[in-house]
């Protein structure tokens, strides 16, 4: 049995006196596709930053790929919460992807055939070759998201952290991104943590759900977690999970 890709034991994260995550323990295996869910401000992005080594736990141990998390770990690919990319940057799609290859290295990258080939390869993996030389300001939210995923994949990571890649997308683009991430996850055997608001588009593809609320987490198969009992316990208040129109809806009785 391989050791887990992510292992948290009794982890607590706090900013000043505000405790964001408390007593968190879980383990995630190689190649798993995990949806990270929970209300706004529950600590989903904080968890990703913890795994990236950008913030330190107040107590407990975090192990990522067998080691404590450190910045600059090439084995982790990361695409943060998406924002509208600036028009005035004079960047092409391939420049954005190129950052994933050597953006952290000092000096200047001269255009080379080898560098271009690697970038093209990454663009092809996310079906973005057709707009490789388009300015990023011309691209839609879904296209920009694909570039960020390609950028995150360029170092051949074993762990992929995607923060809200589905926000601001219409249903068709949403499905395209979900299918893309699933293909990448299965083909590369890379562990994926995908932060989302709505579990429905992800239900057919994910292995497990990591639900964060009130500083606590619950990890398990979607049906084990997204039910009235588990979520009520996690929230500490009455929560109903309703199935309607082939979708799951979480309805809260109170804040």
């Amino acid at each position: 049995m391989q050791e887990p890709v992510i292992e948290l034991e009794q982890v607590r994260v706090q900013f000043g006196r505000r405790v964001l995550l408390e007593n968190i323990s879980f383990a995630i295996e190689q190649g798993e596709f995990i949806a990270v869910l929970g209300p706004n401000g529950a600590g989903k992005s904080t968890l990703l930053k913890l795994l990236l080594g950008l913030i330190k736990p107040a107590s407990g141990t975090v192990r990522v790929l067998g080691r404590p998390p450190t910045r600059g770990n090439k084995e982790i690919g990361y695409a943060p919460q998406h924002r509208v990319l600036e028009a005035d940057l004079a960047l092409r799609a391939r420049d954005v992807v190129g950052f994933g290859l050597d953006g952290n290295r000092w000096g200047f990258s001269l255009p080379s055939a080898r560098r271009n080939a690697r970038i093209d390869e990454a663009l092809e993996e996310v079906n973005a070759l057709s707009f490789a030389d388009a300015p990023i300001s011309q691209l839609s939210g879904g296209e920009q998201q694909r570039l960020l995923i390609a950028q995150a994949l360029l170092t051949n990571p074993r762990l992929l952290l995607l923060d809200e890649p589905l926000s601001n997308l219409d249903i068709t683009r949403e499905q395209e991104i979900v299918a893309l991430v699933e293909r990448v996850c299965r083909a590369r055997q890379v562990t994926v943590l995908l932060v989302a608001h709505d579990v429905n588009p992800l239900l057919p593809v994910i292995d497990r759900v990591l639900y964060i609320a009130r500083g606590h987490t619950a990890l398990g198969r979607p049906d084990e977690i997204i039910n009235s009992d588990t979520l009520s316990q996690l929230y500490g208040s009455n929560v109903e999970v309703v199935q309607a129109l082939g979708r799951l809806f979480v309805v809260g009785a109170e804040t």
Partner: protein
Amino acid sequence: MLDIFQYSFIQNALLAGCIVAVIAAITGYFLIVRGLTFAGHALPNIGFAGAAGAVLLGIDPVLGLFVFTIGAGIGIGLLGREVNERDTSIGVLMTLALGLGILFLALYHGYAERAYSILFGQIVGISQSDVLITIISSVLVFAAILLLFRPLLFSSFDPEVAEARGVPVRLLSIVFLILLAIIVSLSVQIVGTLLVFTLLVGPPATAVRIAKSPLRAIVLAVVLGVCYTFLGIYLAALNGVWPVSFFIAALSFVVYLPVRLLSPLWRERAARKGDLDKVPSAEKKAHETTTGQTAEQIPGTFR
């Protein structure tokens, strides 16, 4: 018409002016992509206050200039990334500096010629040693930017991912502002407070609207900056009355205006074919965000 080039002060002005134009255009590109345009406006003014203070204390105004701009550069670097918040703080800092500058000049009994020359520049009074100092410092700053190029661009574009990939984002931000402060302090002595800002922002602002890649934008900005400076000095020398600053600023504006107005047109055309899900404007993106969030409230809400 060409005989003005025989005067050594014109030669020095052209040489020093063009070197400043080159390094200002390169630095200015990063200024724009990092959203630091306002800092580029504030630093020369803060530097003026430093020079005026030095004049009052009876020390070399150049020293006051460097101390104030580098100090302010580090301060701005520490202010963080939120552009709105940062610009407000810079604005307050700059008005304080200008107030101090005026106070220092008022307290100084005598004609503070060197402080005024920093305000307006002295491009036709440049000595050969000034030219040499400008060349050496510009080469050093150029080398530093070359060394920082990739991480600087990466952290300008996406500070979060850059940080996760191990780029020292905060440190880079401070180092960049120190480089900017050095460039500003050097250039201010030659072209004056007004023109530094023109050369920092004008050429790259035009270039990023035309060029498609960072490298091309920087090269174009350099070409534009050198053309403006050369033509500006030449026209001012021919005219004999109107100042260099006016000509350079006017040239910069005359080129920027049509580019700014027309660039949306050629950007549309440059977009690739078959772009079904293209989002044409920021307004529409903002609209999508709101509707997206409203829809999310239905399945995921706990309110």
